[in-house]
């Protein structure tokens, strides 16, 4: 299903996985009290490795990149080799080596001390830089696209913490760039919080978004839904997907709006109409008349 339409159609997949270990919840899970709910980091990685081996086994031409979001940073874990070509066919390393490399890299990253001198205390509790990770993924896909690569291209995110509204603008930039490049963004969130922005990303790029809570669901979901290629997505039913809520926030108070005032010069949104002669708060354009 992953681009097995003949050996000519290969696909490229970038996986973004959040590997930061949250001491509060993961510590318990790893020690066993709630380890069987299937949301701990070890379970996630186990299911991910299963998915990766399935993906690589389906087509030798498939491209794979794995990125880790770890304690506020973003690292490349694995990248399919480019140069090794034999009679036009790429020689991939065995699947077991790929998985081994990914796991060793993750352990190396999590055991290495934090690099930024000021970040020791702060970066462990900070938000995952999802927008940055997606930007890097798009840059990588863009480089693939400059060659003769014309296959299917996807980004797949596995998130374990919520994304806040503060990443709204960079996230929207990523979504539009992905839309233009025909890249699909699929995502799974493994936390209790609902992620609006990933839902919008999936909706606007023809992808899937799922929120998982129950045990052991991830592996099954990955092997069924995430292995669908774009071509067969039209003919398969991905199950119930509710309407997407495109929420609008005003720039001034971050309130959700149904109706607001938009500056005609910069298109920023405010929730109150300014008095005649006021200035725009974002771009300082002067309003002579208020409509």
């Amino acid at each position, binding site marked *: 299903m992953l681009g097995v339409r003949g050996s000519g159609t290969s696909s490229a997949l970038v996986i973004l996985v959040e590997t930061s270990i949250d001491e509060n919840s993961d510590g318990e899970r790893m020690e066993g009290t709630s380890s069987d709910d299937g949301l701990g980091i070890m379970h996630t990685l186990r299911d991910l490795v299963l998915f990766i081996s399935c993906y690589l086994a389906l087509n030798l031409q498939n491209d794979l990149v794995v990125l880790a979001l770890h304690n506020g940073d973003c690292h490349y874990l694995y990248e399919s080799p480019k140069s090794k070509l034999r009679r036009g066919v790429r020689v991939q390393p065995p699947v077991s080596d790929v998985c081994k490399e990914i796991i060793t890299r993750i352990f190396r990253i999590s055991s290495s001390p934090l690099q930024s001198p000021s970040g020791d205390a702060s970066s462990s509790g900070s938000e995952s830089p999802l927008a940055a990770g997606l930007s890097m993924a798009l*840059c990588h896909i863009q480089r693939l696209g400059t060659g003769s690569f014309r296959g299917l291209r996807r980004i797949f995110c596995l998130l374990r913490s919520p994304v806040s509204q503060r990443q709204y*603008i960079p996230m929207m*930039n990523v979504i539009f760039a992905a839309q233009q490049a025909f890249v699909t963004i699929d995502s799974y969130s493994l936390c209790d919080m609902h992620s609006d922005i990933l839902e919008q990303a999936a909706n606007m790029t023809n992808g899937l978004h799922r929120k998982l809570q129950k045990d052991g669901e991830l592996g099954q979901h990955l092997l069924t839904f995430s292995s669908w290629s774009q071509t067969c997505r039209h003919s398969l039913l991905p199950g119930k997907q509710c309407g997407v809520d495109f929420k609008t926030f005003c720039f001034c108070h971050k309130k959700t709006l149904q*109706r607001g005032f938009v*500056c*005609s*010069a910069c298109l920023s949104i405010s929730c109150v*109409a300014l008095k005649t002669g006021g200035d725009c708060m974002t771009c300082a354009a002067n309003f002579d008349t208020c409509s």
Partner: protein
Amino acid sequence: MYEPDDEDLAAEEQAASLKVACPERTWEDLEEDETGRLRITHGDKQYREKRRKIAMAAANSHVCKGMIRFLYVVVDLSQAVNEADMRPSRLAVVSGILYKFFREYFNQNPLSQLGLVVTRNGIAERLTELSGSPESHITALKENLEAAGDMSIQNSLEQVQSSLAQLPTYGTREVLFVVSALSSCDPGNVHTAIAAAKSANIRVSVVSVAAELHICRRMTEETGGMFGVSQSQHHLEDLLMAHAPPPPLNEQATKASLVEMGFPQKRPLDKGAFFSGRGGEYVCPRCASRVEVNPTHPKFVENIKINNPVTFLQELPAQCSVCSLTLVSSPHLARSYHHLFPVAPFEVHRPVIMQELNDAAKLDATNCFACNLKFDRSGARGNDDAPSVCPRCKKIYCFQCDVFIHEKLHNCPGCEIDKAKGYKNSA
């Protein structure tokens, strides 16, 4: 998902015919240096051109822009477009670029509108009224590509002005002529039409395919527009595409104002709803009436499905049919926010900077931060992989990523990581 459509194939054919016509423009790679010797600059020109473009865009980023535009494109379909000085013909080249331009225009100006006028046989025909759907303009132009007679500047201007003069003042009023002919057939005095356009605050721009016309130059100078004559097919595309980003705001002509808009939510219709025969899926937030948005022609719907998987972008923006409130969705507005928060232009990465970096950073510096490409230290691969460095986060990028980040993505990954570190996890 990506499937080459007819337009792609047509473009490939065009490129092939161009190759046959002029096998290689080898002389363009030659350049004279200070000592008078000839040097081969392989792709150097393109590289510098791209750098210049990014720098220009950054320099203009502080200027207030007219984000809401009303633009009429006037296409000259006189006999002159059948000339074959561009291959296969001027008409094929111009129309191909215009299709691209329509899509790009709505990409960059989500709330703006565009209309299409063609001029032939000495008259001007309005093919489409001002509207927000690129596909309808593309289909209209495709169906009306017969060229005949002369073009008429005065008739076109009068045709356009009658529509533009009624529009609200917060939007910029623009006309873009794509001219191939070397003469204009006018019933009266063109200069009065130009003066009328000027007094109606219409900005007239001209892209000429053939040569400079005095009347066109005069027209753009009077109304504050841009004038360009294309030197080649690529140059023509550059000239037209330069009109896609929003122009700087003309403070006298357009008054910035707060425009009330609604952000409706999509609600599926109840089966037993009273208006189920007519009303649409959106509810106007001001008057609570159900709104039927842009009832599109089935032909366009088919087109949209192929070219743009995101159908909702075609439904909004729209106007409430009862209280005429403008209805938009938040992604439309978000499309233009990169103008507000631009990425700073990257600097050329030099070995001097390399020594200033500490050891940890030096290790990172061997690969592009965004795409993980290994830099070739010998520099044999030329300018395509020349490293650039972000002045804010000091991360190093390859040139391809540099261009992609500034032209398409509008996010610097390194800066985003730094920003995210500042956000405490609220959960």
